[in-house]
């Protein structure tokens, strides 16, 4: 027999154990031995605050009443966790980069650090969570009563209210002790989290023990259990599709939107990698928690007397079988579920209340007095948080007192889920859609909350409790389509699904409609970009403009919030980063943003922003600043494009250089060969001149006049050849130095070509080569140095004569006008010039082979090129014409010049 005193003693011992665990964890963390305190396992177990007493006891009751439907409450979170890559990963990253302290802070920060939204979400969270806390108190007190009724000797249950009061007070004490040790809500509450992880284990072990006892101890094995399940009345329960879908959706949202879940999931998260582990480990936890629910419900229904509360089968089944140990463990499991939920919810709510209600009030009261912040803010925040915890628990207690034991309280779980789920449009819209605005979020939240209260929360108290029976059945003032449980004439739905449907859809519609039509403030847009693109740029964008020297004021304020040591260290580090030796850094935008982020970890985004704004004293960001940020990004892009272009240019230049180098190498080889060639060329005439002049000297008197004439003639010819060679060299060097003068005069291309052909002795097909001309097109007026141009033409024709290796050599001369230029092509039918040589033929001394080259020094084409350059034209080799082909281009005489 378990007496009341034993129960209380066990409870107390358990609580003491929790205190010790929390204390040790805090001590270890304080010494920096964090180790397993930050493991993924602890994180996953701490998520189990999702499973409250309502689910610990209530799931079995739910299964007994509605069959399999209870499982949706766990399937929703399972899907959300399994799909962590969609939303949770982003939420956790945002929570880290923005140092988010609560769900109200998240919404408020996203929408331009709006305090209005912070207050709204906080109020909604308090209204939605208080009944839930009351529910936990009720379940603890009721579980006491189960022991008393199961007791044959019977002990009188002490005053339920007193039990609830003691439980509430104890929880408040624990939460204040371990939940408000440090100000920075972003720092982990190691003690609390570790205690909760322990409670998670107790819950799981308790439920599994009861389940195993029921399956193997009572039913007698899996086979028998399956038979009893098939035979049980639960099998007959109707399947309700609307609730199946609706509950899955609402529980999926609840895992993010419930303040306590947000606290453990996002705020207390120490490492993003833990989320990856939790993505399968937490569903596994839920799986195990619900594995034995149906067997327990089935056995409970068949073994317990009719009329006993199915919510407490977890306790009454082991008790009725005389297993007091198991019942005790199960009682502790339920107690753990209740306490862990209350503790975390109280911490989350107190953070919200102090950051979004107390601090703004205090700030506005402050700003009326002194200009800067005074007093010890740190203590103020902590105190306000402690009072908030006590306040929240007191609210829960009074709620329990007022509605205690009523049916209303049992249903509050899902009603509360639906209430807090109203933040979902604003939350999801905020992290995935940059167009979401503060106005849309605020109106959507309010509308959704009002509809929720009207259609679900208030009617849940029953007719004539808050809403009159007439209002419930007829609608306000007899307007039928406004009936709370059949809004807009949509009756016949399950009230919960009905409320969920209308509140969330009206909420979302308002949110989207107002977001689409409004224009957000610059700060909103800045925050929106940072939230939505959190994975793209984790560095903060600028939120402040450069200010004058208020660093000292900022330090004074920061000291009061962060504490003197932390604040001084922060400022000192910032100053060092800026390369300054003093304690006061320049108030650069970067520094201000950093400081604001640090402060918001303690007092929330909106308050931190307001405090800095008060000192810096101007609006933080303008559209121009946003544009500047965008410009910087654009400049980066531009710069990288420029780099790319530069590197392309460099590789192009390198290619050119390589080509030039190849050309130079080849030229140098050619020059060497030419030098030997030219010395040979010079030597040949010199040798004959010397030989014949010797003959003349030695035998001058004996020679006949004919011989004399012949020999001196040879000497003369050779001397002329030498002179011509030297002339060419001279000519070229003169032209290259630009010392040549151009005697421009009018001329006609045809007559020039005629002259050139005649000069080369090829007229009328009498020469070695046949020349084909197109005289009609040659009628082009020129204003140029006709002598020089003829020289080029003669050179080209002579070359063809010399080098064309066809059996019947031909040279085609074509002229074509295009634009202001005329192009004259000289194309022979020989074998042409090999590609590798095409690049060098215009160089000095270039000669392709010794073949047919007698008397040529390889200067002709070089001279031609120089001439054409002087005449404003060009000469180039034209590949692919079936023979050697040169193109001469030069400007046509303009009308004005021709007229001169």
């Amino acid at each position, binding site marked *: 027999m378990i007496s009341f005193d034993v129960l209380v003693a066990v409870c107390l011992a358990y609580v003491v154990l929790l205190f010790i665990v929390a204390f040790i964890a805090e001590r270890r963390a304080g010494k920096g031995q964090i180790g397993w305190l930050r493991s993924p396992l602890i994180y996953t177990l701490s998520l189990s605050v999702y499973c409250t007493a309502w689910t610990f006891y209530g799931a079995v009751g739910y299964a007994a009443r509605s069959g399999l439907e209870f499982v949706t409450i766990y399937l929703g979170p399972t899907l959300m966790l*399994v799909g962590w890559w969609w939303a949770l990963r982003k939420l956790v990253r945002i929570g880290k980069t923005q140092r988010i302290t609560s769900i109200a802070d998240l919404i408020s920060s996203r929408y331009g650090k709006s305090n209005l939204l912070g207050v709204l979400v906080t109020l909604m969270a308090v209204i939605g969570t208080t009944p839930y806390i009351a529910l936990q108190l009720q379940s603890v007190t009721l579980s006491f009563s189960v022991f008393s009724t199961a007791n044959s000797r019977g002990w009188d249950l002490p005053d339920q209210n007193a039990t609830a009061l003691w439980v509430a007070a104890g929880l408040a004490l624990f939460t204040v002790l371990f939940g408000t040790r440090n100000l920075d809500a972003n720092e982990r509450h190691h003690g609390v989290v570790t205690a909760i992880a322990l409670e998670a284990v107790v819950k799981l072990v308790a439920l599994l023990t009861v389940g195993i006892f029921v399956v193997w101890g009572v039913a007698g094995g899996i086979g028998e259990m399956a038979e009893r399940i*098939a035979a049980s009345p639960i099998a007959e329960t109707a399947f309700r599709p609307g609730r199946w879908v609706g509950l899955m959706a609402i529980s999926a949202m609840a895992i993010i939107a419930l303040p306590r879940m947000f606290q453990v999931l996002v705020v207390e998260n120490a490492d993003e990698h833990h989320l990856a582990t939790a993505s*399968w480990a937490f569903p596994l936890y839920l799986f195990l928690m619900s594995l034995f629910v149906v067997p327990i419900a089935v056995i409970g229904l068949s073994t317990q007397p009719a009329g006993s509360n199915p919510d407490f089968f977890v306790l009454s089944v082991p008790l009725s079988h005389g297993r007091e140990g198991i019942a005790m463990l199960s009682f502790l499991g339920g107690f753990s579920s209740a306490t862990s939920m209350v503790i975390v919810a109280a911490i989350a709510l107190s953070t919200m209340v102090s950051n979004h209600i107390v601090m703004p009030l205090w700030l506005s009261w402050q700003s009326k007095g002194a200009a800067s912040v005074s007093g010890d803010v740190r203590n103020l925040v902590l105190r306000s948080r402690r009072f908030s915890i006590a306040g929240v628990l007191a609210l829960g207690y009074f709620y329990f007192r007022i509605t205690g034991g009523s049916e209303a309280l049992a249903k509050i779980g899902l009603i509360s889920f639906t209430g807090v789920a109203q933040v979902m449009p604003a939350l999801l819209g905020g992290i995935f859609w940059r167009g979401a605005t503060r106005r849309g979020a605020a109106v959507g939240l309010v509308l959704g909350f009002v509809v929720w209260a009207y259609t679900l929360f208030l009617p849940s108290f029953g007719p004539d409790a808050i809403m009159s029976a007439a209002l419930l059945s007829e609608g306000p003032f007899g307007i039928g389509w406004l009936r709370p449980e059949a809004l807009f004439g949509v009756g016949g739905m399950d009230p919960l699904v009905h409320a969920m449907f209308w509140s969330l859809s009206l909420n979302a519609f308002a949110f989207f409609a107002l977001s689409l039509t409004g224009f957000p403030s610059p700060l909103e847009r800045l925050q929106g970009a940072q939230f939505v693109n959190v994975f793209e740029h984790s560095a903060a964008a600028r939120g402040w403009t450069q200010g004058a020297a208020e660093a000292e004021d900022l330090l004074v304020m920061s000291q009061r919030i962060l504490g003197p040591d932390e604040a001084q260290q922060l400022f000192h580090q910032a100053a060092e980063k800026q390369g300054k030796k003093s304690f006061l850094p320049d108030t650069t935008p970067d520094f201000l943003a950093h400081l604001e982020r640090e402060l918001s970890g303690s007092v929330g985004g909106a308050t931190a922003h307001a405090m800095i704004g008060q000192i810096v004293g101007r609006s933080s960001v303008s559209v121009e600043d946003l544009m500047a940020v965008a410009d910087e990004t654009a400049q980066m892009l531009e710069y990288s494009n420029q780099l790319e272009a530069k590197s392309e240019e460099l590789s192009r230049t390198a290619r050119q250089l390589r080509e030039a180098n190849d050309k130079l190498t080849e030229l140098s080889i050619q020059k060497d060969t030419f030098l030997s060639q030219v010395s040979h060329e010079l030597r040949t005439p010199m040798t004959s001149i010397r030989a014949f002049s010797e003959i003349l000297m030695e035998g001058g008197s004996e020679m006949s006049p004919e011989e004399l004439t012949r020999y001196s003639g040879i000497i003369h010819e050779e001397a002329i050849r030498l002179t011509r060679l030297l002339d060419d060299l001279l000519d070229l060097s003169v032209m290259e130095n630009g010392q040549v003068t151009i005697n421009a005069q009018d001329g006609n291309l045809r007559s020039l070509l005629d002259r050139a052909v005649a000069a080369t002795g090829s007229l009328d097909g009498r020469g070695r080569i046949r020349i084909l001309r197109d005289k009609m097109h040659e009628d082009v007026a020129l204003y140029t140095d006709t002598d020089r141009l003829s020289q080029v033409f003669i050179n080209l024709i002579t070359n063809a004569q010399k080098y064309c290796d066809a059996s019947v050599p031909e040279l085609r001369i074509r002229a074509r006008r295009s634009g202001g230029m005329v192009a004259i092509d000289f194309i022979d039918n020989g074998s042409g010039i090999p590609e590798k040589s095409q690049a060098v033929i215009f160089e000095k001394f270039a000669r392709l082979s010794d073949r047919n080259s007698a008397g040529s020094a390889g200067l002709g084409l070089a001279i031609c090129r120089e001439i054409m350059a002087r005449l404003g034209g060009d000469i180039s080799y034209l590949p692919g014409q079936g023979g050697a082909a040169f193109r001469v281009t030069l400007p046509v005489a303009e009308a004005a010049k021709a007229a001169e």
Partner: protein
Amino acid sequence: MKPPGRPLFLARRNYSARRATDAARLLPLVGLFLFLMPLLWQADGGARSLTGQLIYIFGLWALLILGAFLLTKRLSRAADGQDAAAGRPVSTGGSDDQL
């Protein structure tokens, strides 16, 4: 002009990392689809036995957990590989106080 830093094609390791994230996105949708199957049974009119439904739901649940577990392993391996390939230390999501 292509945006800088966004290659069109990826190496094998990065490619499979991308596919792993695709799978991670897809898994909950598959789970949702299968968890909604009871609705179709209902439309069918033929009531399934409670035991059968229990086995279906819990079996599916277990498979989903297993799938999530395997995917997480693959994702973290891929992430480590990517980080190592990029020559930076594996980020443990510590403080993001850098400005």
